[in-house]
């Protein structure tokens, strides 16, 4: 069990956005975090990466909470935000160096894999560029390169498919698969349901700050027999039903 979220209640203020969230990400598994805008996806992610403090419940990575050992906790996470966040004064090369320093990676080995990643994402000749010179997609690729440089146990990827070109999307999915097989867990939030259905092992559907349903495709179909076959049909059916409840 890489990531375990138990009875998580939390949010940005005293009024909780998340109401009793429970799910987990196991080793070698890609879990899709799916929900409408405002369902609580980003809030959940912010709790996992430690930017928010739970009001109740706990988040553990490999059995440890952030309060037991924040350094060891954070070392296991690699995060790719939805909107790329870069240091304006650092070149691409320096972003990689900083990542190596921050995660105390072996510089030589890390640069070897960095070079491979840079080549894959066609950034190898842009090492001395500043973030200002990158397009949105390129910035996102920089985030991917820096995240996959680490030997994290848990990858958290927030809506990766918007802004990436098809080739980069495919390369990212291959990378995720590679890390899965090496024993890492991946939590990915997305609205691109077709891709999610094809690649995710399990799904967590959030609605109004609660887990509406979770499981693999087969169990989603079993739980909601009348909604349809594809993830997108089931999800739309559930979302519409959820709307009526509100």
């Amino acid at each position, binding site marked *: 069990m890489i990531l375990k979220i138990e009875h998580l209640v939390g949010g940005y203020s005293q009024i909780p956005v998340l109401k009793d969230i429970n799910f987990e990400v196991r080793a070698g598994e890609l879990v899709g975090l799916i929900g409408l805008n405002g369902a609580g996806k980003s809030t959940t992610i912010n709790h996992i990466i430690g930017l928010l403090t739970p009001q109740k419940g706990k988040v553990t990575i490999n059995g440890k909470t952030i309060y037991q050992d*924040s*350094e060891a906790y954070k070392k296991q996470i690699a995060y790719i935000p939805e909107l790329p*966040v870069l240091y304006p004064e650092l070149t691409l090369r320096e972003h990689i160096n900083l990542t190596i320093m921050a995660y105390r990676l072996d510089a030589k080995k890390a640069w070897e894999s960095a070079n491979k990643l840079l080549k894959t994402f066609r950034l190898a000749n842009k090492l001395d560029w500043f973030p200002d010179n990158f397009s949105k997609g390129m910035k996102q690729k920089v985030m991917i390169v820096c995240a996959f440089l680490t030997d994290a146990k848990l990858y958290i990827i927030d809506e990766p498919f918007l802004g990436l070109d098809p080739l980069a999307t495919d390369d990212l999915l291959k990378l995720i698969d590679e890390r899965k097989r090496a024993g890492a867990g991946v939590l990915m939030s997305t609205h691109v349901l077709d891709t999610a259905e094809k690649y995710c092992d399990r799904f967590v559907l959030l609605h109004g700050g609660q887990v509406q349903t979770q499981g693999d495709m087969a169990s989603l179909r079993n739980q909601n027999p009348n909604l349809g076959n594809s993830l997108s049909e089931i999800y739309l059916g559930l979302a519409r039903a959820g709307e009526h409840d509100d």
Partner: protein
Amino acid sequence: MTSLWKKRQRAHFLEMLKYLRYVLNDHFVIALLFLVGGLGYGYSNFLKTIDGPSWWSAPVVILCLAVLVQLGSLATLFQKADPVFLLPREHDMHGYLKQALFHSWLFSFCVEILGFAILYPFLSIAVHFLTFQVIVLGLSFPILKLGSLFLALNQLYRNSRSNQWHTLVLNWGLPILWFVGGLYLNVWITLIGAVIQCLVEILYEAKQWQLYSLGWRLAIQIEDQRMLRIYRFFNLFTDVPNIRGTVHRRKYFDGILKWADRNTSNPYVYLFMRALARSTEYSGMYFRLTLLGMVLLIFISNLYLSLFLQILFVYLISFQLLPLLINYEENVFTHLYPIQKSIQVAGFNWVMVRLLLATVVLFGLAAGIAHASVLQGVVSLMIGFIESWMLLKLYFPTRIKKMTS
């Protein structure tokens, strides 16, 4: 569109007022009073030394007039989102822009009156201008400005700053020609020239704007730069959120960066050093204050005064560098990296020690060499070391605790 302009103008006015409150604080007003008084006194003394026109007085007047007529630019108050939201009303934007032009004109008019009032005594003493001649010359100013604002408006429609040459000739060349005519031949030449130029520019714009569509990108770029200049000025006095220093490569700092990388593996030193080297936000202030301090120490021979100034400058520099510590707080990765908070503080201290020591050594050298006194240099160094130590060990820790909590 008129109501949009009114709304924008009001918001802009309130924003400027907000910042002016910070600029015109008590200390600054007093300093300003002394500055204006001193300059006025110097100017009046200078005027007393002039007896009648000489060969250089007319060229100086022409130069002053040419600079004065450039002051003030077209403030469109455009915002980045405008091309998205206002595109369907593009035809009506000309009305909006004319309002903007009128207000820009009024503003520069006020500035010009002030400038003219300062120039008036020089005109009457050094060029022997009669009052009516000064008035004729003065009248041509708002007319020239109106023309040049219409030219600027026209450029927004032509969507090009292309013809830099055109602009140079129309904004500098022709006015200088009118001034030369006015000062050497007859003052009416300036007024008539200004009226003709202005009319041509207005009529040309009236024809042109219907042929082209508004160059939104250029207009917004120009307005952004204008606002940035204003914010930069305010940023000297207070924290302006809209301003983030720009980033420059500055290859000449690479040696220092490499030296720092060799000496420590603290990731925050890596970050802070690069922020210092490449962002205009901190390095500009650091170099300016250090240089200014050195110049003052070179020219002030009184030991106590120079020591006081040195202490003040070191304090000011360290105080202005403190926000560097939280420069990256809004970046998620600063929180995500598996690094203890104490390492961030240690990295900050590493950088601060070296920056302050560099300043102290430079101050000591300046004080010692300029006054050819080993004693003054040594005393300056000692005081600097003690102050830096006190700042770093006693003052900073409490400030840092406050900033990071």
